[in-house]
């Protein structure tokens, strides 16, 4: 894997994330989050997951974040309200929780399987048999579409129901007159 995409994308994502959660102004947070997503996208591209990388930018950075911005504007918060709101609290708790979780994962990653190659746990024979040629696959749109509409048709359809739910729900919750 390409170390440069890792370091670049990783620092973008992490730095953007950190700034997102620490900025007092929500708009700034949104913008930093977009930076973070760009970093994520870089990481995905570095891992040959082009489709996901693009999706990340299109859907996340493009659509969702714009929605966030809209909402923030819509809320039209007064500066005093924002000020009251943006004094972070429970920093210790937050740090502790985050640190605990990170420590747990890191401990597993470093203490257990290194994933430096070869296989993780599981039955090696079975995994080899399944991956076989597939290890050559790249995250191209075609391959992903093949997966989506063959093996993963059910979640795909279910996701459509989910989106329907989201639409109906959002409408039901926000529209003033129905």
């Amino acid at each position, binding site marked *: 894997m390409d170390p440069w995409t890792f370091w670049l994308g990783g620092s973008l994502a992490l730095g953007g994330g950190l700034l997102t959660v620490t900025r007092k102004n929500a708009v700034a947070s949104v913008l930093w989050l977009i930076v973070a997503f760009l970093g994520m996208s870089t990481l995905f591209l570095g891992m040959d997951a082009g489709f996901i990388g693009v999706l990340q930018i299109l859907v996340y950075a493009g659509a969702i974040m714009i929605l966030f911005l809209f909402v923030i504007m819509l809320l039209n918060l007064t500066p005093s309200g924002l000020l009251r709101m943006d004094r972070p609290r429970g920093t210790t708790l*937050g740090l502790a929780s985050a640190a605990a979780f990170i420590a*747990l994962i890191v401990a597993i990653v470093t203490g257990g399987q290194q994933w430096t190659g070869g296989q993780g746990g599981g039955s090696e024979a079975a995994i080899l048999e399944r991956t076989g040629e597939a290890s050559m696959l790249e995250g191209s749109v075609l391959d992903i579409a093949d997966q989506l509409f063959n093996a993963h048709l059910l979640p795909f359809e279910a996701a459509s129901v989910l989106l329907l739910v989201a639409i109906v729900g959002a409408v039901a919750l926000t529209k003033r007159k129905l």
Partner: protein
Amino acid sequence: MEPLALYGYIILFAPLVATALITCFTLKHKAVSSWIAIGGMLVAFGANVLAAMQVFGADASFEPVHEIEWLSVGHVMIPFGVQMDALSVMMSLIVTGVGLCIFVFSTGYMKGEDGWSRYFACLSLFSFSMLGIVLSTNLIQTFIFWELVGVSSYALIGYYFHKDSAVDAGKKAFLTNRIGDFGMTWGIILLFYTLVDTLGWERASFSYEKLKLLYHASDPLIVQVMADHSGTLALATLLIFTGAVAKSAQVPLHVWLPDAMEGPTPVSALMHAATMVAAGVFLVCRLFFMFAPYEIALGVVAWMGGITALLAAGVAFVQHDIKKVLAYSTLSQLGYMVLALGMGAPAAAMFHLTTHAFFKALLFLGSGSVIYGCHHEQDMRKMGGLRKTMPVTFWTFMIGTAALAGIAPFSGFWSKDAILSAASVGHVPGAPILYGMGVLVALMTAAYMGRCVILTFFGEYRGHAKPHESPVSMTGPLVVLATASVFAGVLSIPKGISEHGGWLEHALVGATTAPVWFPGMHEEVFLPSVAIVGTVAALFGLFLAYMFYAKKAWSIDSFVAAVKPLHTLLEKKYYFDEAYLWLVANVQQTIAETCGFIEVHVLRRIVDAVAGTTRWFGGQVRLLLDGHLHRYVTLALFGAVVIIAAVLVGN
């Protein structure tokens, strides 16, 4: 079932049937109730006479015991039945005979009382219980009726249940007897299982006949076993004797008897004369074979009797209630009987019991008549001169007094003489002292009875309401009992006087004999010296009474002042009641309160504390969710990591 056993069951159950009939059907019909009760008693008495004719008859070939299985588990069989030997038939004859008189007397005495039917029902039940003891074939059955006597006495003593004193007296009687019963149960169980442990299941039994066989056995091995366990067996015997101590009101469990005067007078008569208190003496007679082998047992019995006789006689001097005087006299006389038992003379005890039954019933009924005539006045200081207004009562009472005081030839003389003779030759430790005490008691008895008669019947009438003679339903029984009191002595005139004497002793020999090896068994003889000493003592006692109360030659007040501490001691009845009260109020109540405290403040607190702690934890758990979302998230995530870490570490 042979006729004798049938008689036994009839004797036993006739009063019970009467009770049942009255309780179920005739509670509202007074006259009918009393007739049912008297009828029941009459039937019992009739059957008893028939039985007596057979038992004491010439051809004495009969099977005395009839039993059925009452309860049987494993090797333990508790029978129920009737034992119709000389002792029990004799005793039941007294119970039914005297009882009959008292029943009849009651119809007069209880006129106008509420709860008439209840009274007769309880009276019948009481007779049933007593007859049960008398006819019992085994220890458990005896114990059953023993308790029933206690219960029915409770009902009768507490007859006037609106009076606190009556209720408390009933309670006292019941509880005191319960203490005795405690010892008795313990003794019975100890005896039975000692026998089981030593002789095996087959031989151990509750039945008197079988027990007697063991004690009388000639098999050297059994003798050996019995001798080896003599300590335990003697202990068991004495524990059983505890029951007798309570029932026969021996010191220190005598306290209930004077209080029992709270019941109607006929009840006192029944209780004191023929039943209840006699039960203890009867039991020891019945079990004499168990006492006899153990000198220690006999010694305890004798001393207990002697002390009771002396102490009670003393208290009788300072009583003003005519019934209380008689009550303490009963105590004293019971002490006499027990003394006789301890001296190894059960026949003498039974003899005295018999004569005492007659004259004490007579005296009580006489006092009842007096009380009735004086409009339910019991204080002797408010009587006097009644001999004119109540002649029949007076003369019969005089006969009773003479018999009690032991004046020849009234029946009391003979029986008392038999006891004193036994005491004079007794073997127990300190027998001479006991003999001296016996003589002293004879003197005192005559003296306080003289005091009683003089205060009641002589001098001037000191009361308010006009006294009158009692109706014939009351005087009739008096006459009957007076006759018996005069002549009952013939039952056992000593052999030294009459060729046909000693009949009673002879008759009872089978029932009461001690084991063959028992050395102290006393063959009753007439000892002139004893008779003379006894008579002199009695006459001197009467003389003292005469000088103090009738002639007033000597001032009673100055005499009392001279022996002030003794007088106080007697008035306080040796502080027995106070001691018991202290025990009950301080010791027992303290334990109870302590337990109550533990219950409420410790155990309940603990339980409530468990509940409270749970609730407290509930309150704390609730506080975890304080509405702040960030705490929720922390809780969830931190919790998740901690749980995972804990599990990993745990593995």
